[in-house]
């Protein structure tokens, strides 16, 4: 073999190796692209199945069954989380796919009691995912309360309530105007002594506002803060020998979740149905 042919053979060999390397790089790049894209697409599954509907902060751009606009517009920054005085808002984890980083409220742990009055979360939202179309707590549409376990309801049994609504270890907070207008306190620091349990009505932020307005003292002195409709009321159970009452949810309920949060039985007798808004009732 002449020197020339040896050189040629070497050249084709190294060119072959290079081709092989390129082929491998192409294959691994394609595999990586498919893998990463596929994984990201998994994120769509919970949203498309619609099984991660949540109680969202006031003003969330959604209908009871469709959160698409809300999930699309939320930039996942958590500024709403930071401004909430009762820390009601938490962010979703990756298990909820494209919902990752979006805010929701676990009402039983900590409901939105509107103790900021001014809808701070809405004001903090940079993208309009919490729409600025609403100005007052009564304008929000988060869900609608329903008496899911009437048998557990103390009022229906004609029973009172004495002690801590959620026990001594409960972390949730509420604003008790008569104690501190500006700082919500822990529910576990506020024992009750009630002849007949009326906690869901007593702590309802809408009912509290209506009562304040009736006394001529609307929140922040703003008449616009006065809710136009009642949200919940106790009505007598007919022919009850023990003076039992039943909580009835009214048109003014916005689904903030305070009733679900404060209800003493475990699980609670009253919960928020997030698939229903008052206007649809």
């Amino acid at each position, binding site marked *: 073999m002449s020197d020339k042919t040896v050189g040629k053979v070497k050249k084709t060999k190294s060119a072959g190796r290079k081709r092989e390397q390129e082929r491998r790089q192409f294959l691994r790049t394609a595999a990586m692209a498919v893998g990463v894209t596929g994984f990201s697409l998994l994120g*769509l599954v919970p949203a498309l199945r619609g099984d991660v509907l949540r109680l969202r902060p006031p003003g969330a751009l959604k209908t009871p069954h469709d959160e698409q606009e809300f999930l699309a517009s939320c*930039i996942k920054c958590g500024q709403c989380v930071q401004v909430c005085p009762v820390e009601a808002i938490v962010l979703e984890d990756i298990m909820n796919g*494209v919902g990752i980083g979006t805010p929701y409220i676990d009402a039983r742990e900590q409901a939105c009691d509107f103790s900021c009055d001014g809808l701070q979360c809405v004001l903090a939202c*940079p*993208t*309009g995912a919490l729409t600025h179309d609403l100005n007052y707590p009564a304008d929000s549409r988060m869900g609608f309360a329903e008496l899911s376990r009437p048998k557990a309801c103390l009022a229906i049994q004609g029973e009172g309530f004495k002690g801590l609504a959620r026990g001594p270890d409960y972390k949730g907070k509420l604003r008790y105007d008569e104690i501190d207008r500006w700082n919500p306190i822990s529910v576990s620091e506020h024992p009750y002594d009630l002849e007949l349990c009326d906690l869901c009505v007593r702590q309802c932020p809408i009912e509290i506002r209506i009562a304040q307005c009736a006394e001529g003292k609307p929140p922040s002195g703003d008449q616009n803060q006065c809710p136009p409709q009642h949200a919940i009321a106790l009505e007598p159970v007919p022919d009850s020998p023990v003076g039992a009452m039943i909580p009835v949810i009214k048109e003014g309920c916005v689904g903030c979740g305070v009733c679900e949060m404060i209800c003493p039985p475990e699980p609670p007798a009253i919960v928020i149905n997030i698939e229903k808004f008052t206007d649809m009732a």
Partner: protein
Amino acid sequence: MSYIIESLKQLFGSAPTRHSKETMSVEVKEVHLHKRQNPMSKEVFAQLKEEHGPASTKWRNRRWATLIAINLLFVVSYYFDVQILEGALTASRFVGFHMADLNSALQVTLAFKHMVLNLVIGTVTVFILWVLLGGRTFCSWVCPYHLLSELAEKIHVKLVEKKLIKNHPFDRRVRSVFYVIFALLALVSGYTVFETISVTGIVSRALIYGPGVALVWVGLVLLFEVFYSRRAWCRYVCPIGITYGVVGSVSPLRVKYNIKDCHHEGDCRAVCLVPHVLDVTIKGRAQDVDVDISADCTRCGMCIDICPTDSLKFELKGLGKHL
């Protein structure tokens, strides 16, 4: 203009343009001639390196301090309610002024097909900020994942040195493919699909709001970078890098290469996150004595730190002010 075109080319994954020797400027030819006539022996170069001392950590230290300080400011603002920098890296308020991450804002806008005023303000503010500061400067000076990835890279390089593993590079054009895929997915599905897997967003939120399951994904990406492919996420996947890179292509803050004292030994390329931007330091590539490094550069300063001859420097184009 050619700087912008070359930057975009490299950002989207093409190899840097290789000019022919004929178009090389006279000055560069003279530099090469001078180097040929005064060849430096290996011993002399080694001595020169010795004199220069070990790689400086000046820019790395400044960068790490900045990155940690910014991310800590988010955490501190929330924990101590001092309200200096509220939110997370995806969107925030700096003493009340809206800021929005350009890529997150883009994803949201594509999915939502609306832009409220606050988001416009935040996006414009951040756009101007990074035009001034160099675009991908965000990656190396702010992104918290970058720091984790840098540590993973150190382990990776050690393992490669010990021949325990091999690096598996990908085709850089795949990052552009991802960019288009994620933009289309947001547009068509109406959901911000990329945010689900964005390690930047996940790490930023985990720092501020506490850890979650999402960190497992971040861990997997880091393991992939340690054992399989060096800096894979930043190099081949992350669309945030392209978004900021495009902004950086019109930025006056760049790294400038000067060929005069360069020995073309390639120390800079060995430490670089995006080594293709430094291909111009290969012997015979530079067309002019001074060349601006393309906008795919993250302005991390590692090449500046390691260069034994100070041939790489930060510059503010137009101000003639050298840092």
